[in-house]
Structure formats: structure tokens, C-alpha cells
């Protein structure tokens, strides 16, 4: 099978304490560089992961175990300190849906803006606009400024745009806090549909029941290392067993 995502022993260090001004850095240099200007910790420590095309993988782990950082490396937002990340085909993230929304623009403008940010062409957005609108159930409010939307409407529209970007690899980070229960179910069905259509899915979620429904394979991260990689049921069971 073709590999869609190839992560080779990547490491990422984060700096905990920052200097934010030249003055602080200057004082530090003048004092003979005594002490460490910053503390570091490993967010990812030699993580390797191969995902085949059409596979659906759940990244599991406690808060701060490096799941979201790994997703950001796959999407290209972050670059690793060591190791390499390679992906095949277009990657789109349902990472923090609505990041590209501007509250003062209308729903329609935001669909176009966010669609373009997520890599769609003008023609693609035009073609899919009706479908985006239908899926979001926003209806007549599409020409209202987004700041007047309820938080549910906002997320529904953002999710709808993201789901219509049609990439080869989908990165999904905690999106299922979207809207009310019927809409959540609709999103879930849509994600499953994408998986069945041969899209590669990488999902981060703390909702263990939900990921067992969507994904076949589970990868457990702990303090920036892969500790378990196998069938999602086993990984979920192991994770539950730990607490």
C-alpha cells in the first residue's frame, strides 16, 4: 500500500520561558550569558509514524502528550528540530475550525476567505458553495455578519467549509464539539464517509468511544513518545486500563 504520511523520528523542543525584548537579551549577554535564558522541554521525542493511504488513525494520549503538536508537523505549520515529515497529496486540517473566520465579514465572505485559506480555488468554492450552505444549515443568515451568529452556527459553517476542501489527507483535531447532537452525528457520518471514500484520516480526540467508531488504528502518545500502536480497541483498552 502507498504511504500517505511518513514521519521519521521527529523531535521538537519547546522553549518555556521567552525573552520578548532585545533589552532582556542584551542584559543577558552583558551578564556573561549566565544562566539559561530559556527552559526547554521535548514536545516530541523521536516519534515515527507511517500512515497508509485510506487508513484512519486515532492519536490518543493525555493532555500535553504531543498529539496536536504532531498534527501541526504533518500539516506543515511547524517544522521539526530533527527527523523528517513527508506527506503525499494535499493535506487539510480541521484544526481549530474557524481559525480563518473574521467576525466582521458576512457568512458568505467568510466561506470564500476560509475556503481559499484552506487551499480551494475560486472555481471550487463556487461549485461547492450550495453544498457548503446546505450542510451548515445556516440558510438565510449566510449574508449576516458572522459576529451575530450563535456559537453553534459559527462552528457549523466553519466545519462545513473545512469538510468541503476535499484533500487527500484530513487532519482532525477535537472538532466534535461542533453544534448540537444531530449536527454532531451528521459530522461524524461525513467523516466516516470520507474514510470509506479512501481518504486518509488522522484524528485527535479525547472522546474514546467516538474515535473507536471512526478509526481502525490507534496510536498512543505519552510525553512525546509513541508507546503503543495497534488496533484502536486495544489502544483504547490499554489507555483506560492505565487510569
Amino acid at each position, binding site marked *: 500500500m502507498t504511504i500517505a504520511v511518513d514521519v521519521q523520528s521527529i523531535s521538537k523542543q519547546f522553549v518555556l520561558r521567552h525573552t520578548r525584548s532585545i533589552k532582556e537579551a542584551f542584559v543577558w549577554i552583558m551578564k556573561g550569558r549566565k544562566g539559561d535564558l530559556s527552559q526547554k522541554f521535548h514536545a516530541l521525542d523521536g516519534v515515527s509514524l507511517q500512515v497508509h493511504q485510506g487508513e484512519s488513525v486515532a492519536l490518543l494520549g493525555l493532555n500535553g502528550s504531543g498529539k496536536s503538536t504532531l498534527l501541526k508537523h*504533518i500539516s506543515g*505549520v511547524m517544522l521539526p528540530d530533527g527527523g523528517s515529515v513527508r506527506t503525499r497529496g494535499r493535506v487539510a486540517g480541521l*484544526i481549530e475550525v474557524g*481559525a480563518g473566520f473574521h467576525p466582521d465579514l458576512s457568512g458568505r465572505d467568510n466561506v470564500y476567505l476560509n475556503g*481559499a485559506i484552506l487551499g480551494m480555488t475560486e472555481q471550487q468554492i463556487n461549485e461547492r458553495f450550495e453544498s457548503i450552505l446546505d450542510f451548515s444549515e445556516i440558510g438565510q443568515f449566510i449574508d449576516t455578519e458572522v459576529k451575530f451568529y450563535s456559537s453553534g452556527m459559527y462552528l457549523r459553517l466553519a466545519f462545513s467549509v473545512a469538510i468541503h476542501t476535499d484533500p487527500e489527507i484530513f487532519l482532525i483535531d477535537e472538532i466534535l464539539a461542533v453544534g448540537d447532537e444531530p449536527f454532531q452525528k451528521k459530522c461524524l457520518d461525513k467523516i466516516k464517509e470520507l474514510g470509506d471514500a479512501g481518504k486518509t484520516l488522522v484524528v485527535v480526540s479525547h472522546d474514546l468511544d467516538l474515535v473507536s467508531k471512526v478509526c481502525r488504528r490507534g496510536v498512543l502518545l505519552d510525553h512525546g513518545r509513541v508507546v503503543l500502536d495497534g488496533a484502536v480497541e486495544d489502544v483504547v483498552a490499554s489507555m483506560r486500563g492505565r487510569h
Partner: protein
Amino acid sequence: MATAELMTPGFGGGLRDVLRSRYLLRLLVAKELKVRYRGSVLGLLWSYVKPGVQFIVFWFALGIFLGMNRNTENYPIYLFSGIVLINYFNEALGNAARSIVGNGGLIKKIYLPRELFPVASVWVSAVHFVPQLVVLLIACVIGGWNPGPVQLAAAVAGFTIVTLLAVGLGLFFGAVNVYFRDSENFVDMLLMIATWASPVLYSWTMVRDGLFDAFGASTGGVLHTIYQANPLTIAVELFHFAFWMPTTTSPRTDQLQAVPPDILDLWTPIGIATAIVVLIVGQFTFRRLEGRFAQEL
């Protein structure tokens, strides 16, 4: 679907990627323009009002109180043709330097060519430049402006120099600003200097004569060459050549001294070359620093 190659994500093609994302760039510019004037009654009219008021203030203070109107023929046109260009540069660089930090929320979450943001800022400023140019053209036509192709080419060259310079410096300071927020204050200072360090309010002969008087012919000459090598100075002088000079008349204004005599054949190429070097350095710095934007913002 399986035909695509394995690629490393997060390595963009720099400014070439901006060309490829023209549609997104257009939307970002449209967003900026829409958001800027939301809820304001005058809207885009503010782009006329602000430089207009600035012009009136300078004209009274410098033209009438300090007597520049007596020294320089058509001083209002002289003044305005420089001011519009400097205003464009100030707005473009000021916004571009803040654009990366300002769009941090997006840059942290989604990968896209980050050069888009400084470029979009400069573009928005270019849109604001248009109404100012219209005001300037009206003033020029009233003053009897009849430009030839050389004058028009000079105007385009001046605008190009400022644009390249603003994008280059915007990339540089925008990227540095992520690491050191001092950068935007430094830019503000730089912009204040830019207004006074180019012959916007005074004429270039005053600089030459002043420097010669103060430092003697040799040191003064070197200082004047340095002053003249500033690409903003060159751009402003090109605008004087294009807009103000055609409205002047022989007996009152010495046509050989109105702008530096070698402005077209010597200084314009130097200005364009400097601006291109600045752009390359800006892009290079940006590429070096952008890998850590997501974690530093």
C-alpha cells in the same frame, strides 16, 4: 490520487507561492479594506481626508510661515507629490511589519504561504494610494501639467521602488517582529526619519548647499552622495520630476537644478537595484525565520 509524490510540508516557495495564491491574496486585501472602514460614515473617503488635512497643515506651516512658497514655484504640488509617496511607504511598511504578529492566530493553526500577509498589507496601502494620486493629478492639471512618456515612466519607476522597498522591509521586520516585538517600534522610528530624510518638505539643493556649508566640499560631497543613494530620496525625486517639474516655468525655476541632473540615468537604476537587494534580503531573512513562527507567536 496515488500519483502525487511524498513531499515535505511547510517548505514554501517564498514569494513565488504568493503568485500562486493570487486568489487568496485578493480575498485578504478585500477583507482588509472591508474591515478597515466598517461602521465609519466616510468610509474610503478617509483616504482623501487624512492626506488632505496633512497637506493643508504642512502647506501653512512650511509654505506660508516658513516661506517655502517664495523659494519654490508651485510649492503645494512639490510638497504633495512627495507626501503621497511617503504616506504610501509609511502605511505599507507600518502595516506589513505588524502583519505576521497580527495574523498570528491563523499562522499558528493553518499552513499557508506567510509572505501573503506582508504583501497583502502593501497592496492595501497601494489601494489607499490611488485616491491620493487622484488628488495630486487634479492639482497638477490645474497647475498646467503636460507630461511626456518620460515623466510617466519616472512616476512608475518611483512607485515601483517604494513598493519593492516596502515589501522587502516589510518581510524583514514582519519576521523579526515575531521574535522581538521591539521591531515594530523601531519601524515607527524609521518611518518618522523617512519623512524628513527625503526631500519632501524641502528641495534637494538645500541639502547639498547645507551639507557643503557645514562640512566643507569633500565631506559634504560624501554625505550628499549617501543622502542621495537613499532609494526613498530617489523615488521622491522621480515623483517631483514626473508631477511637479512639468508645472514649473523656466525663469522662476532653474530646469537644470529642479531635480538632480543625473536622476534618470544614474540614480534611478541605483534606486531600483537597492530596492531589489532589500527585497532579496527581506525574503531570505523571512525564510530563515518562518520555520519557528508557529511556536513563537
